[in-house]
């Protein structure tokens, strides 16, 4: 049989899918190969994300070991690379406990609800030219919708565990996620205006100049907002180890705990992937038609490294300070960015409504000025909050002689 996807089919844009579909179509009926190719893509995606999560957990532990002046896991496999596997085996063989007072059904499905959005997000991200599983024309909207599921999962975990620490973690986590959703969405609007499209493929193509140069403020807000949504220091109030031990997943053990951890590490990678696509030019780079995936992975690696670095360095903010940071600092910044971008695009675009490379560089110049001015002004405004007037301390060295 010779199966060919219609040109109007949304999956036709995906090279990988088309190749699998046509190969399978040689032996199976077209309708069935349509499903088989889809399942094959899903298999690739799920295993890719979960393997990536495992690999990243090893990378991060090694990195943080280095930041700590330690070595980090180095026993299993070359450089300890099989450590995630060993951890997984350990967690799988552990008893899977459910607290007596727990809402058993909700408690059990939380890990699945947690992992699902992480994998779903990757469906629309293009790894290389024409390689996204689905090139949705509302890709950015899809990502925002799917990542919001995480807050439901966190609340389900906290509520069903019948544990007060978990409840603390859940209420904190939901407050953080809801607050940070707003500046993140606002900052993405700037990108959408410049790219003129919500499709991730178009956003990548539009980045003749990477958007972190064109939209520095948006990139900053998105980076901060994302690390809050990922529950990583300095925004990790939902699972603050020193305060509420593990927060919402305090009662989870065994394979459920493994899944929650996989979701957390995977979320870092998928968020990095989204950020790479939106701000760092995605798969573009020299020889992008062959090496696009390599550029993409390299850029993810850089962002993941930054996340680990920040995690190893900063103390945690308090919940009220965290929310104030979102509403009083990030939100105004993203609104300013939105206005500036809208005005620039209005004046710079040509008759067809497109921007050329010179326009983008020009915007980058203006936006860097705006970003610098904003950070200076807001920095001065919140300085009083951070460092109240007066010397840093009493700062006296008394001789303390006996009187």
């Amino acid at each position, binding site marked *: 049989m010779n199966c060919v996807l219609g040109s109007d089919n949304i999956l036709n844009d995906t090279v990988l899918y088309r190749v699998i579909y046509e190969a399978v179509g040689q032996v199976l009926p077209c309708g069935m190969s349509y499903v088989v190719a889809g399942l094959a893509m899903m298999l690739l995606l799920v295993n890719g994300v979960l393997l990536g999560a495992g690999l990243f957990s090893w990378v991060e532990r090694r990195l943080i070991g280095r930041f700590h002046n330690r070595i980090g896991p180095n026993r299993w496999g070359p450089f300890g690379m099989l450590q995630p596997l060993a951890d997984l085996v350990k967690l799988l063989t552990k008893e899977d406990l459910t607290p007596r007072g727990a809402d058993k059904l909700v408690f059990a499905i939380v890990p699945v609800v947690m992992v699902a959005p992480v994998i779903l997000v990757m469906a629309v991200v293009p790894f290389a030219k024409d390689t996204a599983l689905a090139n949705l024309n509302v890709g950015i909207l899809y990502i925002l919708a799917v990542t919001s599921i995480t807050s439901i999962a966190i609340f389900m975990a906290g509520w069903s565990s019948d544990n007060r620490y978990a409840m603390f973690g859940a209420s904190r986590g939901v407050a953080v996620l809801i607050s940070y959703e707003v500046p993140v969405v606002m900052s993405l609007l700037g990108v959408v205006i410049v790219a003129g499209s919500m499709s991730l493929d178009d956003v990548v193509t539009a980045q003749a100049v990477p958007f972190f140069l064109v939209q520095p403020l948006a990139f900053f807000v998105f980076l901060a907002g994302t690390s809050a949504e990922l529950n990583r220091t300095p925004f990790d109030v939902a699972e603050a180890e020193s305060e509420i031990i593990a927060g919402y997943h305090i009662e989870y053990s065994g394979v459920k705990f493994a899944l929650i951890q996989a979701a957390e590490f995977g979320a870092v990678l998928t968020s990095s992937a989204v950020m790479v696509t939106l701000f760092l030019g995605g798969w573009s780079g020299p020889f992008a038609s062959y090496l696009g995936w390599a550029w993409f992975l390299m850029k993810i690696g850089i962002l993941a490294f930054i996340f680990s670095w920040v995690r190893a360095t900063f103390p945690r903010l308090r919940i*009220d300070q965290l929310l104030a940071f979102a509403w009083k600092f990030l939100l105004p910044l993203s609104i300013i960015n939105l206005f500036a971008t809208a005005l620039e695009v209005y004046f710079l675009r040509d008759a067809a409504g497109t921007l050329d490379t010179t326009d983008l560089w020009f915007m980058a110049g203006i936006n860097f000025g705006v970003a610098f001015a904003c950070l200076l002004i807001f920095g001065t405004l919140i300085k009083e909050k951070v460092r109240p007037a007066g010397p840093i301390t*009493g700062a006296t060295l008394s001789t*303390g002689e006996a009187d």
Partner: protein
Amino acid sequence: MPIQTEPMTVNIGPQHPSTHGVFRLRVTFDGEEILEVEPIFGYLHRGTEKLAEERNYTQIVTLTDRLDYVSSMINNQAYCLAVEELAGVEVPQRAKYLRTLTAELQRVASHLMGIGFFLQDLGTLGTPLMYAFRSREKILDLFEMLCGARITVSYMRPGGVFFDAPEDFWPALEQFLEDFETEYAEIEQLILENEIVMVRTRGVSILPLDMAINASVSGPVLRASGSDWDWRKKAPYDAYDRMEFDVPTATGGDNYDRFWVRIQEIHQSIRIVKQCIEQIEPGPTRANVPLIIRPKPGAEAYGRVEASKGELAFYLVSDGGISPYRMKVRSPSLINLTVTEHLLVGWKLADMIVTLGSLDINMGEVDR
């Protein structure tokens, strides 16, 4: 109409990563805010004071190691001072210098732990803690050279110290001081001026000076509230009367100031260590004290030092036998804990953990 919330009572501890041992707090929260605090301790009670009545005066040294197990040298020192006063023993000069030196190294080690865990409580992922431990390990290595033990040292004895320092101790100490300068600068650079540390700790859980004095609080916690009370200055013991050093004080009495005072005290301790190295002279390290000490019946003594956590004192009463009739330990951690409720009520859950960290308590000493 104000939104009604239901107060929630939570047990923090005794198994909790940030209660510095087996400390338990029964806390009533309104959301994140603390309404009531009830500290409960006693989970690490080992009956040290009663055990002391069954042992002779030399054996008790090993019990004192296990009080505040992160500053055992200073515990030894306080106890030995009490026994020496009780038995009327004169300590040789070299022993006095060795005691001062080791006590100050121990203070550095203890403060490093205090700072490290304080920052751990603030939510850092262990980086400052590991930096602090890196230096602390080297101090413990030095102790191992002196007496073969790292934590429960039992280095000091009534009448002096157990051994003189071995030959290779002094070059190792010089090396440590050299390394410590850069290592400590790294720690300070990492955290002292960090904005998040500032915003989390400044103005939080303020302890006013009058309250600190009324509650008999001592040590860095008292000095952060504005007093310059330090027994090393007010009533110098061992070789402290020949040492030049300053007492860091702060006026705010908040978490940051308690943390800052500890940071600065480490600098002063290093100063003292350097002076000890300069001034120490060869000589005997232990007075001629019998193994079984029998003080006069009815004799009593109060040995008091400025430990890393505050005023540590041993009160000994003799009935003429080989063991004390009664030994009372005045442990600074326990007395510093009495202000917990005042410090915590009205602040948030996250502040509570940090405040406990800033008090730098040690449960081995609180429960005894």
